[in-house]
């Protein structure tokens, strides 16, 4: 299955792009996706613990099982105000 990934804030600098399309096996989780992204964008590895992940517009845990076409957002801790 294919999912889209969008990077926000300085994650765009770490990866050098605004987003990516990733192929994952059926049943793949956000944790699987993150491991795959680290292989492609090694600088994300240092941010793994603090990274926030949303699917659509809701936060999801690392064991969330992805579906075809999911829109995933990865970003660092938020800083509004």
């Amino acid at each position: 299955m294919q999912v889209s990934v969008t990077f926000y804030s300085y994650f765009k600098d770490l990866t050098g792009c605004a987003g990516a399309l990733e192929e994952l096996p059926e049943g793949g989780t956000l944790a699987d996706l993150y491991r795959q992204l680290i292989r492609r964008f090694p600088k994300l590895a240092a941010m793994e613990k603090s990274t926030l992940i949303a699917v659509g517009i809701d936060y999801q845990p690392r064991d969330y099982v992805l579906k075809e076409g999911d829109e995933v957002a990865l970003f660092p801790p938020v800083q509004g105000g």
Partner: protein
Amino acid sequence: MKRKLTIMTEPIDEAALQAQRCMSAGMGAVVYFLGVVRGREDEDPIKAIDYESFREMAEHQFNLLFDQIEKRWPVESIRLVHRIGVVKVGEPSLWVEVVAPHRGEAFAACQFLIDEMKRVVPIWKKPIAGR
């Protein structure tokens, strides 16, 4: 509970926001908070902050926080304005107003909203160096 959320690039007009205040006779407390860009970030002088948001998610997460406030406190209305884009030092980036019957719930709800915003609402800041 009435709610009005605005995420915008235009400057925050405090006077206009205050002039638009609307509260019923049973309300005895208005708490409002203004967040202003400081001239330093991590000890370094800056001239502005560039705020970025994941807008659709930010609006959704703000509304989830408003839902929680509605369940916890007898708040009549909340208005929140967050500016995005480049905000110069000394200019406001955030304006929040909570109207409630008494000061206790108004202060508590306002504090909760700002604390939680800083935890879950996807807005980020990028300091712009300079004086």
